[in-house]
């Protein structure tokens, strides 16, 4: 019984690991953790990207692992929700796949894009959550193009990514291969994971010619004007 429980845990944890590789938020990010791979293995163009670490401590942000794990629990033979800390992945090792090591940029015409969810979409609210990815690539010595990484073993199948460099910056990641057969709760569609910049809003002191904002109703406008005129009259 103990053994059964253990194997269930192992299955659950490794399933979580697969997702973690896609849903990781920290320095364990697959793109950053390819350095342990030996030299002859790292000939793919993606390595070229990874070799130049991005100065920003938050390279890529995908959905929070704990929430992402919940979304997979329905498809796993789970005896309970996997423990996020127990499933902390070791750095992913890219291993060369026979015909997937493109050394030259290939045109990005067709590829399966992936949009991940922070939690399982429910019927009433089937909209994908924003994957708020952040990347401030200061090193802009990348050469523009589309680069395909090697297919990497992710326990349940191969994961292969494609990086799009625009204006010397990593602008999007495309998922070329993904072990989707067992991840039915993960909705895969043809959408990109763009790397959008994120910032806190703060009041600007600049003087501007025009202001853009949501529409004022005439009623609100007139009330406000009335209030202003009232003050002006006193």
């Amino acid at each position, binding site marked *: 019984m103990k053994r059964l429980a253990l194997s269930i845990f192992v299955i659950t944890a490794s399933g979580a690991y697969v997702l973690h590789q896609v849903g990781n938020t920290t320095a364990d990010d697959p793109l950053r953790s390819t350095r342990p791979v030996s030299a002859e293995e790292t000939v793919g163009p993606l390595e070229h990207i990874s070799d130049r670490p991005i100065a920003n401590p938050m390279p890529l942000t995908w959905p929070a692992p704990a929430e992402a794990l919940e979304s997979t629990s329905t498809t796993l033979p789970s005896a309970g929700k996997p423990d996020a800390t127990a499933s902390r992945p070791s750095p992913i090792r890219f291993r060369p796949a026979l015909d997937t090591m493109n050394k030259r940029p290939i045109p990005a015409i067709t590829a399966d894009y992936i949009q991940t969810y922070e939690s399982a979409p429910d019927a009433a609210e089937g909209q994908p959550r924003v994957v708020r990815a952040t990347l401030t690539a200061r090193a802009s010595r990348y050469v523009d193009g589309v680069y395909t990484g090697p297919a990497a073993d992710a326990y349940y199948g191969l994961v292969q990514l494609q990086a799009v460099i625009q204006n010397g910056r990593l602008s999007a990641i495309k998922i070329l291969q993904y072990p989707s057969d067992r991840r039915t709760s993960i909705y895969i569609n043809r959408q990109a994971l763009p790397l959008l910049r994120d910032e806190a809003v703060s009041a600007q002191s600049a003087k501007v010619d025009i202001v853009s904002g949501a529409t004022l109703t*005439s009623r609100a406008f007139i009330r406000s004007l009335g209030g202003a005129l009232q003050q002006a009259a006193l």
Partner: protein
Amino acid sequence: MRRTRILMGMPITVDVVASVDGAVVDSVFAYFERVDRRFSTYIAESEIQAINRGELTSAQYSDEMREVLALAKQTKSETDGFFDIRLAQGPIDPSGIVKGWAILNAARIIIDLGARDFFIDAGGDIQSSGRNAAGSHWSVGIRSPFNAHEIVKVVYPRGRGVATSGTYVRGQHIYDPHAPGRLINEIVSLTVIGPDVLEADRFATGAFAMGRAGIHFLERTPGLEGYVVDTSGHATLTSGFGAYCEP
């Protein structure tokens, strides 16, 4: 010359730099009045209300009405149904298209009259052209969704259109047509920079209705850049938005 009037239920400001008499500005306001008489759902005699009462067959629609309805249909398709002028109760209200469309047409009127440096601001949706009186690019501040007296971003659209959709000021005035009961409460303000104000406006409305997914829609749609603010005060920018923040 800069003038503001309240038309179509909102303040409309027209600023034509080199214009000394009011002729250019007057013809713009006259145009907006004409548009309002045709498209206002608040005016019983308007064409749109006649349509909603079933008094007109589609063969009797004006050319302007046909153009606006075609644009609405196109926008609905381009936004996967998120932009929809048909209200839950049945009548159609194309004001989500009319504003941007009217601003763009008004800008064409000004250009036809020979002016190059101007802007039109109708309820926060803006078409600018050329430069301001100081010879600089027009600057547009994005109003804070949390404080109407503050701006949180300055952009220089350089002839492109700017439109902002939000839940503030009017309260929840955009809803998800796929789930009419669901309030869009994760994001509070979405600004779109597009090729012109019509494009910016129709996609600002459509993308806003998508909630958090809207910014991704903008990212993958060529020609559109977006700036979205969520309830926690975080802004997310499309990858090309920053280029418009440089003076």
